[in-house]
């Protein structure tokens, strides 16, 4: 078998091997067992003491959400002003300017919500100070926010009837000190020894072998790249993200970053089974998520490895597949695998540009983000899947004609309403957002508030529509990848995606936590012969069907106008 495909299989296999022990470790940390990282506890105590936090104070789900939203608001204010005035702050060896208010708004939000859209380019749009003290900081804390919300849900599942669900600050801080920080150090050191820069040295000038003078951007990138993947953030230090040879120097770097971005999402699924002691429930979820991933991966790899038919028509040789927007060291198969993983989980880092990939790959990437629950982002992936589970339980209940139950609690109108609203939110934001963008593009091509709308699109026709659809989908999914040909650095895109980002982040966190919190507080009903078993394969298939049907109904028309139409025009 060819070495590119073997590389992909080995990378996925290694991820599973590492996810298992990581899941056990995560469970121990949040159960409060003794673990090797207990040497961190003096530091944590210092943090609690200085901040005036009592980590033993138990919170209900509403208090959790209040704490979560308050600290997120603090981060937003901090990030917005730091980006606005970054030119006046230290650590700016390349002399980069401050961001405009609309760009700072977008950048601050997109890092705050774990998305990392990046309407700027890393080499010129930010300084070392904002990269490290603002963006990398947000990459840590936004990932920890998602995980903390998920742990609250775990706690609600675990107990028969419960209102007190642990302390938000403690869960949040431990996620950073016990999970993210130690793993990031390890990942960053691997990258450093493979050639990723980590010093504070600025841009340098070299005379090339042929005698040209070029400038080379550098900087303390290794630590940033580690948390960008481990926290499923995806924002690159350099403009070309993980396609940049400093950011992702070789195939070892590829494997490292690839494993890093998907290991926590997979581990969280295993951890769910261990934590609530319903392992079969978690295995079924893992199985469904994996089947979903393979359904997206195989068409992508097939399309990329067969090459671009338009180039084949011109008569050149495509030995390994399509190479536009790809790097030799990763190859088409490796880039295809990366594109699938980065869109199903909410990383959005890239090792080859999605805009130049085949229409079939573009379709799969869009679907990955629309589903947003196959493994999914740090913590939030399972929260998204949980919404589909609630819908599936509800529909199953209707089919057999009894009151639906989940985890020993009755599922009633209020919870189903929340789930339905969250499910409808995504298509509303994506489709309405894309429609507005199309309207502005057609009717206001020269408006001042959208700097250069007439040159939004880098490609004509169906693919141009896909560029706008992709940007809105990526924002709603908090993914952060893009069809980067889109000219998104203007007021329209900065502000519109900014609001999509906020709604697409916080409502899908609050919704599932609220459902779990409300249900957890209800009277526990012991399982009987009449209880719908949620850990069976049948129920797994039911959930899968719900996901497929809802997605198809919501998005098929939009997808037909974009990648599907492009597919038929390319392979005619």
């Amino acid at each position, binding site marked *: 078998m060819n070495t590119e495909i073997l590389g992909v299989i080995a990378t996925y296999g290694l991820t599973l091997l590492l996810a298992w022990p990581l899941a056990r470790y995560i469970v121990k940390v949040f159960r409060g067992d003794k673990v090797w990282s207990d040497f961190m506890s003096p530091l944590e105590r210092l943090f609690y003491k200085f901040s005036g936090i009592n980590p033993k104070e138990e919170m209900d789900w509403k208090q959790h959400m209040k704490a979560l939203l308050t600290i997120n608001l603090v981060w937003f204010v901090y990030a917005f002003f730091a980006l606005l005035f970054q030119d006046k702050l230290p650590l700016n060896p390349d002399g980069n300017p401050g961001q405009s208010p609309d760009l700072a708004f977008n950048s601050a939000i997109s890092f705050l919500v774990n998305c990392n859209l990046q309407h700027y380019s890393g080499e010129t749009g930010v300084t070392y100070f904002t990269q*490290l003290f603002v963006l990398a900081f947000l990459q840590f804390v936004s990932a920890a926010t998602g995980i903390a919300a998920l742990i609250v849900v775990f706690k609600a599942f675990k107990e028969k009837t419960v209102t007190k669900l642990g302390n938000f600050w403690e869960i949040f801080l431990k996620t950073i000190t016990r999970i993210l920080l130690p793993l990031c150090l390890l990942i960053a050191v691997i990258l450093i020894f493979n050639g990723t*820069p980590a010093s504070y040295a600025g841009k340098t000038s070299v005379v090339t072998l042929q005698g040209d003078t070029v400038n080379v951007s550098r900087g*303390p990138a290794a630590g*940033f790249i580690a948390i960008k993947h481990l926290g499923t953030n995806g924002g690159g230090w350099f403009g070309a993200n993980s396609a940049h040879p400093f950011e992702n120097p070789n195939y070892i770097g590829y494997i490292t970053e690839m494993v890093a971005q998907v290991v926590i999402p997979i581990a969280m699924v295993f951890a769910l089974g261990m934590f609530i002691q319903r392992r079969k429930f978690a295995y079924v979820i893992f199985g469904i998520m994996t089947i979903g991933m393979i359904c997206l991966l195989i068409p992508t790899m097939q399309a990329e490895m067969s090459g671009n038919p338009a180039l084949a028509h011109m008569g050149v040789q495509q030995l390994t597949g399509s190479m536009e927007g790809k790097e030799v*060291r990763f190859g088409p198969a490796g880039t295809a695998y990366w594109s699938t993983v980065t869109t199903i989980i909410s990383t959005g880092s890239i090792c080859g540009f999605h805009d*130049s990939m085949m229409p079939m790959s573009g379709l799969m990437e869009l679907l990955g983000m629309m589903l947003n629950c196959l493994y999914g982002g740090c913590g939030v992936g399972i929260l998204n899947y949980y919404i589909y589970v609630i819908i599936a339980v509800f529909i199953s209940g209707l089919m057999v004609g009894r009151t639906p139950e989940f985890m020993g609690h009755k599922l009633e109108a209020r919870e189903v309403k929340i789930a339905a609203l969250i499910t409808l939110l995504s298509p509303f934001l994506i489709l309405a957002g894309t429609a507005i963008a199309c309207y502005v593009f057609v009717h206001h091509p020269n408006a001042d508030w959208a700097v250069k709308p007439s040159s939004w699109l880098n490609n004509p026709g169906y693919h141009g529509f896909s560029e706008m659809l992709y940007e809105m989908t990526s924002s709603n999914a908090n993914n952060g990848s893009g069809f980067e040909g889109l000219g998104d650095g203007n007021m329209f895109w900065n502000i519109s995606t900014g609001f999509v980002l906020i709604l697409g982040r916080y409502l899908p966190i609050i919704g599932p936590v609220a459902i779990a919190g409300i249900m957890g507080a209800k009277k526990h009903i012991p399982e009987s012969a009449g209880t719908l078993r949620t850990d069976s394969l049948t129920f797994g298939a039911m959930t899968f069907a719900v996901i497929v049907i809802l997605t198809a109904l919501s998005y098929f028309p939009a997808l037909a106008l974009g990648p599907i139409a492009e597919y038929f025009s*390319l392979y005619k």
Partner: protein
Amino acid sequence: MKKYLLPSIKLTVLLVVLLGGIYPLLLAGIAKLAPGKGDGVTVMHNGKVVGFEQIGQKFTEDKYFWSRPSAVDYNAAGSGGSNKAANNPDYLKVVQERIDTFLVHNPDVKKSEIPAELVTASASGLDPHLSPAAANIQVARVAKARGIATDKLKQLIADNTKAPVWGMFGTPTVNVLKLNVALDELK
């Protein structure tokens, strides 16, 4: 909300110091032990730095092996790809021009032998590598320009080829800058 505001601010200050300050400083310290000391690994020729191992360079002269086309013209103060769609007519025109240019400089090569990577732009615009096939297709041109036997050049490419990890995972690559430095140092 108010109850949580002060703890939020204080905790944020501490975490900014830990994650934004101490964490990267620690890594910069560790990097002093790594090749390139964390500044990026450089390539030397005749006692001078001629570039970074990871950062690709533009080669236009016939006597050098050419790198892949770049959307940023190998200006490493930025990076990026073309972001052109598969059947964008403007893009296909550019590819056709690259094919024609390549054929003019490499008269011994047939169009059907040109590997696509030599006429398509990389993702970073700084791709330092070629596949062995894309290097070998340029041998006849370089041999003629330098008056070196083709066998010797093929050997040089083989010597500069990095196999996939453990011979099994990933792609074989040739670092173009290192290959060209080795070429200049030949004799």
